[in-house]
């Protein structure tokens, strides 16, 4: 039991607690959670709810980064998926058709990235840049340049509804986290992905099919991005092709890095990446409730990120051990 508690004390969890406490100092009501209209209501819930899209992106991004890759397209894929879902329900499809269609769009984008990286052997940063750049254009074509607003209650429920008092978004993210973690750790996928990330050539020599694993992780990342895209569209009752998921690929990468997965591939932890996403969102929410002038937003954020990254740098961890 003692060992378990120790395992929970990581630079990431310390950082999250520190940010939350900091928020509490700036805004004493930060930890108060109340029951309102059959759901939990409070800043902590906001952190979970608003953090969910980036957390979902980070789940997919972790797998990609573990293979020594990166997926820059996730923000644009979010816009595409949101556009597909919104235009489909507005076009008269039921949510049971619209959402799967959006997810298929995400899978297709992921497959495209996977083929460029795994089959054509294009560097991931370049390969995924293609959809990062073109994806918003595709989304705009789908929405014909409008913000497609919808009123379908079932679709809106995905973004703003709640179940057992918790926001749907949080439940979706949590379910994805649990399923994915079990999938990579209870099967051999986790080990094989790490092997490909550590040394792709050696993986080939050891009889690992790096190609299908790479396809898998990019398709999965596209799938996660599509889920996040549907959530974000459902949240604002509309698909905003210009702004949905804008720059969120960078937040997702940051979440993964804060979570301790190296951009050089190899060892990865999906729960840690989700923790990273929550740290980022705790900062964002903290800034909103603190009342800082908006001009300081980015500086405050940068300062905290630097502090976290220093905290988990090799130099700092050596100091920790000595202490």
């Amino acid at each position: 039991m003692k060992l378990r508690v120790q395992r929970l004390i990581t630079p990431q969890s310390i950082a999250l607690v520190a940010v939350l406490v900091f928020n509490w100092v700036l805004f004493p009501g930060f930890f108060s959670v109340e029951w309102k209209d059959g759901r939990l209501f409070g800043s902590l819930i906001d952190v979970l709810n608003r953090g969910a899209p980036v957390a979902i992106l980070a789940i997919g991004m972790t797998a990609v980064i573990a293979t020594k890759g990166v997926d820059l397209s996730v923000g644009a894929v979010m816009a595409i998926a949101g556009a597909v879902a919104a235009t489909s329900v507005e076009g008269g499809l039921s949510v049971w058709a619209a959402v799967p269609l959006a997810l298929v769009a995400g899978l297709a984008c992921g497959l495209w990235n996977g083929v460029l990286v795994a089959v054509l052997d294009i560097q991931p940063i370049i390969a995924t840049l293609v959809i990062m750049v073109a994806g918003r254009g595709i989304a705009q074509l789908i929405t014909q340049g409008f913000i497609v607003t919808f009123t379908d209650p079932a679709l809106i429920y995905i973004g703003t509804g709640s179940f057992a008092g918790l926001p749907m978004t949080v439940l979706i993210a949590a379910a994805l986290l649990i399923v994915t973690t079990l999938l990579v750790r209870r099967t051999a996928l986790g080990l094989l992905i790490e092997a490909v990330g550590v040394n792709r050539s050696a993986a080939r020599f050891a009889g690992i099919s790096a190609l299908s694993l790479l396809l898998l992780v990019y398709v999965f990342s596209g799938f996660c991005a599509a889920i996040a895209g549907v959530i974000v569209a459902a949240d604002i009752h509309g698909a905003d092709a210009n702004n949905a998921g804008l720059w969120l690929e960078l937040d997702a990468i940051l979440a993964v890095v804060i979570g301790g997965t190296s951009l050089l591939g190899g060892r990865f932890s999906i729960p840690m990446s989700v923790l990273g996403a929550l740290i980022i969102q705790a900062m964002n929410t903290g800034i909103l409730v603190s009342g800082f002038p908006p001009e300081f937003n980015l500086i405050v954020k940068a300062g905290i990120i630097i502090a976290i990254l220093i905290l988990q740098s090799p130099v700092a961890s050596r100091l920790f051990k000595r202490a």
Partner: protein
Amino acid sequence: MNILKKLALGAGMAALLATTAMADGMVVGFSQIGSESGWRAAETSVTKQEAEKRGIDLKFADAQQKQENQIKAIRGFIAQGVDAILVAPVVATGWDEVLGEAKDAKIPVILLDRGIDGSPDLYLTSVASDQVHEGAVAAGWLVQAVGDKPCNVVELEGTVGSSPAINRKKGFDDEIAKHANFKITRSQTGDFTRSKGKEVMEGFIKAEDGGKSICAVYAHSDDMMVGAIQAMKDAGLKPGTDILTVSIDAVPDLFTAMAAGEANATVELTPNMAGPAFEALAAFKKDGTLPAKAIITESKLYTQKDDPAGEASRRKSLGY
């Protein structure tokens, strides 16, 4: 004088004769930035409508957010010998050369919606809204609607550092400062987007005692307000009743909210920049009347009394 110059002069004379002959059969080139927002799309379709109304042959070029495309388009218009050029410049700098060429070709240029850093000699006039005034109109409505009661206002700002965000804040804040019963308690950026508007408003509601101490919300754009309205509804508040709303732009989705009683007022950023431009152009072509260097469009206020449902559908057809 060499033959080429003679020929060029001849062509110019012929063009001049042609235009005077049929004053309202003008050919006008329009270099549009792109279609990055609903308002931009509406501006394009209103410009086309206004041209059609006046029997003007509009040559339209979409620059897809790139200045070099705009420069190419303008050179093309000059080569075609159009009667006038409308430009919505994507950036403020780098126009001296190409507008100089238009000036040499004696083609008047009118700037729409945004200004440039350069000599005023390079263009005939510019048509734009007064962003500071927009903020002041929004504040004026709020002051009049609230009266003498104390009122805490929260503000959703545009993208930090952008000129609409700076100006719309200044106009509103300055006007509000004149009234002691008003206080701006919170101000944060919502990046002009729905989702950030919603997220920021959620934070404000938490920070302001579940929204109970908020009297009104002011947003620099309707899109952010649409998000904020959702945040208020999600928190069990009644926007438009519990919390007053005023924002800027007049996009259809805000009129839809207004029709449902969930929004109170919006200040129009008119997509009709071309109308005043064509008026000025016609006067200039007719007897050389020089317009003012800056034509300010009207910042019209819309409230729930102004047939919001009708406005919503009318505007949707414009391409918002």
